[in-house]
């Protein structure tokens, strides 16, 4: 069996990679270039709004380098989880960028688009038919929660990517896809060991994060019927058994088991050997197909609209008494909001954070310092944008002037900018941590072909 080489330029498109290393990678004659477009790691906003976390300019520039490398090597180029969240709108966004670049570079291309977004009625039918099961922990699912979600995606696995390969496309733009499947799909199709295919994919999914030099980006994974080799492509990056094995721990709740569509991988018996100073050989992972074919679902819903205010306290007396000050201010504001806006405390949420004190860890903070200043961040959330703005405007003068006791000079704190309130718009919440059982892997996915 001929080995299968997958070139992974970086952990995600938009974060940058070493162009010289990419060039070295191409010289190694890979069979495919595979890169991820994102995940849930940046928070619920991307999926909730169906937009990219990364700038279009960064994505376009990096995609241009990859399209040029693909043209030079005459191999397929695949991106999974287009535009961070992998909604249909983000697959179309990547297509738009690809078409612009094809024209600029004078390339003729066949593009396969894999759509992974789910319609609410389809999810409801599957929910009623008991085809949706919870992972642990999961929000309590019901029909009204499904209705509240702005976007729901299913994570594609290797099977859906195989269907894309069959189209003979030069470029595959996949919606939400398991980070590993874009890498494992080709070796699996070419007959590499399934355990090694998934294990190598997991190791390389963040690019050179499995090496001594994470920011260099580019790694090459070579798969065969017994295992895989992984090598960093930058001159200044080295893969060692420790750097490679340690990556199994990264962002993984269980360091031995990885759940994927159609089964799970177990690396308990994997062995890592150095081949030379920068290349590692890995064997021993096993693949266990499941009885049912399940794909993971992700969804986000709107929980409200936010407005924030920031005030800076430099006066030592107020810095020392900031907790008492905030409690008094908060209680006073709740009465004012009731009196002037006729709102109960259940209609909105008022959250004060003390920057310089415990704003990162909250109640978990164990250390007490002696800060020269404290930033008080006030976050207002309600069901309506106007209400949040109104509450923030009501708070504004008191945040500036609220005295600790009645018998003292009115203080004036520091507002760092004007306007003081910042409307943050819609805020979202992840609302699904579930599996969807499919009879056929393509049941929840669609492929469309376009030519440019």
């Amino acid at each position, binding site marked *: 069996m001929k080995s299968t080489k997958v070139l992974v330029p970086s952990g995600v498109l938009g974060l940058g990679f070493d162009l010289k290393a990419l060039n070295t990678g191409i010289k190694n004659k890979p069979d495919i270039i595979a890169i991820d477009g994102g995940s849930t790691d940046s928070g619920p906003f991307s999926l909730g709004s169906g937009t990219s976390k990364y700038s279009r300019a960064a994505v376009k520039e990096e995609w241009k380098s990859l399209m040029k490398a693909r043209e030079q090597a005459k191999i397929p180029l695949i991106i999974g989880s287009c535009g961070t969240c992998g909604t249909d709108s983000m697959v179309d966004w990547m297509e738009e960028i690809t078409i612009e670049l094809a024209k600029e570079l004078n390339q003729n291309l066949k593009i396969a688009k894999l759509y992974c977004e789910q319609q609410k009625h389809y999810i409801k039918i599957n929910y009623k038919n008991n085809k949706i099961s919870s992972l642990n*922990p999961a929000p309590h699912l019901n029909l009204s929660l499904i209705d509240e979600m702005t976007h729901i995606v299913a994570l594609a696995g290797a099977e859906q990517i195989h269907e894309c390969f069959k189209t003979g496309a030069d470029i595959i733009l996949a919606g939400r896809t398991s980070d590993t499947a874009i890498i494992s799909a080709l070796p699996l199709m070419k007959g590499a060991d399934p355990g090694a295919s998934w294990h190598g994919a997991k190791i390389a999914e963040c690019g050179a994060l499995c090496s001594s030099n994470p920011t260099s980006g580019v790694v090459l994974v070579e798969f065969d019927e017994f295992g895989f080799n992984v090598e960093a492509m930058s001159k200044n990056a080295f893969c060692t058994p420790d750097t490679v094995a340690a990556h199994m*721990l990264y962002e993984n*709740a269980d360091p031995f088991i990885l759940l994927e569509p159609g089964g799970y991988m177990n690396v308990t018996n994997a062995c890592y050997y150095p081949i030379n100073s920068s290349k590692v050989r890995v064997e021993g992972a096993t693949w266990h197909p499941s009885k049912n074919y399940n794909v993971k679902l992700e969804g986000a819903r709107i929980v409200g609209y936010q407005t924030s205010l920031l005030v800076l306290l430099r006066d030592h007396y107020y810095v020392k008494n900031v907790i008492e000050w905030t409690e008094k201010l908060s209680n006073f504001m709740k009465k004012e909001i009731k009196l002037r806006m006729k709102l109960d405390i259940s209609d909105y949420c008022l959250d004060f954070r003390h920057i310089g004190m415990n704003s990162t860890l909250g109640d978990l903070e164990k250390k007490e310092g002696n800060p020269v200043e404290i930033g008080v961040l006030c976050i207002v959330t309600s069901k309506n944008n106007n209400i949040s703005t109104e509450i923030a405007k009501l708070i504004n003068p008191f945040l500036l002037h609220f005295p600790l006791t009645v018998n003292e000079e009115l203080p004036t704190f520091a507002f760092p900018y004007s306007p003081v309130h910042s409307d943050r718009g819609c805020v979202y*919440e992840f609302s699904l941590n579930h599996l969807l059982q499919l009879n056929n892997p393509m049941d929840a996915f669609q492929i469309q072909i376009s030519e440019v």
Partner: protein
Amino acid sequence: MSTLGEKVKNIRSKNAGPFWITIDIFCGNKKVYDDICINLNNLDVANLLMIDSKNLKRFEIENLKVIKFSFPRNIIQGNIYDRDMHGAQLGILLSEMSY
């Protein structure tokens, strides 16, 4: 009194999806690894993180000299009361714990 962070090579924490956080303690050598396997107990870690110890998963990975803890987030990533979306500052609590 020294801290766990002074004893080991590195401690890091990170989201493992929006619903879990995982903390990796890289011990650096076998002696430290063996010592921590015996002397770092789950209840102390759970109390530090204010979670139920029943929800704390512990993995001892001898070949890497790593002890790993994973647990469901008290607050889902990015919810309005979340303070650290990537959960990457939480490991500092373990670094600073007395050991």
